[in-house]
């Protein structure tokens, strides 16, 4: 690190560890932040970004490692404690009180008083003065929610800086801002940087990272991939850090070429939904695995949701074995023999309080209808069969699925669909957040299913994984399918280049 090694870092985390039941969320991560620096934190969902932030701000108690602020070891016990140390956080959803005035929000808990009463005049004057430093000239007596998210964002920053003043953590601050507002926010960030604050900036917009940050740190699966000076890294290498392994591996081509004999099982033409995913064409043969590569928010999950009828497609049509098929709801998709393991198992996948048995039987039962209950004996046999086949680690089939580890929950999700005997299975990040052993088993399972003639669409941010099992890979960027790779073309290098393309296309 050329910049600042001589100086003592403002905030220094060493070997931070955080363990959740079943997973290691952070595995010995180092992170350093200098005064007057914007340091970007990058990684896919589940990489450990927010866990690291929560350890720094005391929202989580870490299980190992040190956090040094100005060279002194600190152990914040909560976000208020962290604020007292000088570490302030601003989240994507502004966590202020929308029904109070701007001035009240700024001074909440520290209102200026006169004879024991809040002095409204002094409070308003102070608020105006504080905001003028940020180039905001607004009526501070109006309620917070009468201003745009961008202005609220700046007010939240002003409050955090006022209360903390050393380190400012911005967690996806630009997610709901338009280009003009982002520029306004960046002006504020730059001025704070000049005032000597250390700023941690989290975003999954690469353009913004390159524009605003001095250094960047990439996390993957709870581990530190590396810290780089932003000016010295290019887009391709950055994406490689986030998704792939080192570039040497890129020559590893795919062994098996799918013999695309016969007619495709499924043909989607001009399929898409405004604002979600632009219309795309896709055909899938029996026994074929289609990989989907792309960054977070690129449109990869949206592709899956449109195919499964979660988000209704508003253009194009689908044909199954040559006949048109309606896919306007999950029920219709399931009727057509589809299955879908969503990315977020907790909110979209498992029914936590129901048993492993009931979770496995759910999709099949829903398809048969409520009147014809699958007898307990059959349910049990079915569950035990898949507990054995997929090696689901549970004391018995009656255990609530929420008490199992992430990898085992994922296997229960797979079992739920496998008992419906689907012809087309969509897996969104099937290997995220699960331990190495289960990881390998799920990849083996994908290959087995495809050998049995099932068609699969697998979304993954592990590019190596996609190379290992895909017959074709769709690359998604900016909510568009931008490339399709097949056979020898499937290499991590090709995928990374397709994902990164804007830099090269920038000319036109």
């Amino acid at each position: 690190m050329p910049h600042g090694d001589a100086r003592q870092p403002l905030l220094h985390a060493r070997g931070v560890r955080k363990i959740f039941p079943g997973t290691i969320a952070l595995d010995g991560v180092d992170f350093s932040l200098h005064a007057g620096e914007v340091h970007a934190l990058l990684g896919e969902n589940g990489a450990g970004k927010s866990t690291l932030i929560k350890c720094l701000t005391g929202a989580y108690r870490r299980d190992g490692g040190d956090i040094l602020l100005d060279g002194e070891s600190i152990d914040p016990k909560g976000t208020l404690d962290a604020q007292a140390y000088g570490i302030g956080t601003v989240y994507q959803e502004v966590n202020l009180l929308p029904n109070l005035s701007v001035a009240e929000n700024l001074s909440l808990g520290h209102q200026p008083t006169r004879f024991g009463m809040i002095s409204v005049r002094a409070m308003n004057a102070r608020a105006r003065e504080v905001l003028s430093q940020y180039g905001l000239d607004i009526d501070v007596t109006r309620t917070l929610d009468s201003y745009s998210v961008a202005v609220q964002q700046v007010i939240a920053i002003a409050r955090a800086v006022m209360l903390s003043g050393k380190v400012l953590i911005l967690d996806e601050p630009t997610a709901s801002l338009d280009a003009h507002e982002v520029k306004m926010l960046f002006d504020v960030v730059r001025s704070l940087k000049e005032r000597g604050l250390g700023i941690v900036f989290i975003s999954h917009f690469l353009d913004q990272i390159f524009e605003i940050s001095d250094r960047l740190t990439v996390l993957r699966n709870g581990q530190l991939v590396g810290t780089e000076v932003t000016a010295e890294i290019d887009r391709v290498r950055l994406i490689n850090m986030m998704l792939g392994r080192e570039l040497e591996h890129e020559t590893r081509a795919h062994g098996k070429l799918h013999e695309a004999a016969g007619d495709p099982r499924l043909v989607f033409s001009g399929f898409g939904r405004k604002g979600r995913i632009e219309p795309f064409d896709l055909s899938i043969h029996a026994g074929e695995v289609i990989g989907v590569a792309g960054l977070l928010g690129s449109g990869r999950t949206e592709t899956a949701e449109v195919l499964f009828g979660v988000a209704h497609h508003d253009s194009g049509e689908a044909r199954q074995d040559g006949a048109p098929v309606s896919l306007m709801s999950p029920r219709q998709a399931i009727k057509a023999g589809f299955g879908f393991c969503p990315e977020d198992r907790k909110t979209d996948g498992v029914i936590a309080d129901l048993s492993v048995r009931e979770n496995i039987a759910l999709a099949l039962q829903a398809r048969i209808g409520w009147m014809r209950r699958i007898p307990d004996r059959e349910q049990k046999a079915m569950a035990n069969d898949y507990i054995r086949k997929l090696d689901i680690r549970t004391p018995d089939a009656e255990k609530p699925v929420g008490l199992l580890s992430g990898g085992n929950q994922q296997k229960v999700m797979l079992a739920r669909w496998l008992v419906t005997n689907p012809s087309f299975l969509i897996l969104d990040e099937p290997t995220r957040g699960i331990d190495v052993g289960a990881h390998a088993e799920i990849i083996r399972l994908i290959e087995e299913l495809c050998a049995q003639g099932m068609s699969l669409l697998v979304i993954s941010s592990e590019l190596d994984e996609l190379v290992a099992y895909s017959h074709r890979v769709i690359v998604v960027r900016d909510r568009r399918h931008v490339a399709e790779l097949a056979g020898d073309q499937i290499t991590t290098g090709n995928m990374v280049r397709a994902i990164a393309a804007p830099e090269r296309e920038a000319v036109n």
Partner: protein
Amino acid sequence: MTGFKLLLRRILPQLITLALVVGLISIMFPGFFEISLANGRLYGSPVDIFNRGAPVALLAIGMTLVIATGGIDLSVGAVMAICGAVAAWGITEGYGLLPTLLMALAAGLACGLWNGLLVAFLGIQPIVATLILMVAGRGIAQLITEGAILTFNHEGMIFFGSGSLLTVPTPIIIAILTGALVTLIVRRSALGMLIEAIGINFRASTLAGVNTRVLLVAVYMTSGLCAALAGIIAAADIRGADANNAGLWLELDAILAVVIGGTSLLGGRFSLIASLIGALIIQAVNTGILLSGFPPEFNLIIKAVIILIILVLQSPRVRTVLAFLSTARADAAGQEKKVVEP
């Protein structure tokens, strides 16, 4: 056998509570357990508890299913008034017993359909959606009775309030039959599991292909139907439809019965039997307070305190402490131990 054991373990706290409440009453009022037979019908305080508790028990059946989906139905008291009014109107207009009953039940189903459509298809929060009918329902009932208390003297109709079958008062039979029927339908079919799945995780259930919207509507319609039965009983009991007072505040008793029965207001796992016992506990408390001769102004306060104690005993924290204590004791004695998840 294991299924029976599981059921017993599930409803044990409710059974103990009921036993405690009844025990307390019988200490204060020694003649409590006296049951007599007169005019081919059973009389006595225990019978009275069952009989008076029947409307709330009926409401609790529908309410349990609604709460299991993560919803709530505030309108059941008002729906009772509407259906009671329809029943009284039908019988005084001379439509005959069966058509009148069918009209009253249909009115309950229509109310449930309205609630269900608001919740499932317009996405209105259940507490707000059913509040609409809770407020408007008594107005509708008054329109039907044209502002008066509509009285009737039809023997067949009165039978549903104060009649008896094989010495057992009719309301008790209706409540027990409805409870048994709904339990049977819900547990013998897959409905129970699907309702629980919706209550625990609506989105995941939809993604698994569960027909979440239709099931939600069906559940609110069941609640409306149960309220209609309760409304018919209430009207038959006083031989008239009182749009202002029929079923007044009973929605709160029904919700309480479900909560005492241990079904979480957040939805998910439910037990109809436990809710029915919950309804009995509430009625036992009511009857007990009346019998014990406290000044009536104390009634509501005493009821509130008793219910507070019941709920505190059921709170997860107290349960964890109790489980911990019993685990420690069991460990010391080297007996079977309960696993407490960390």
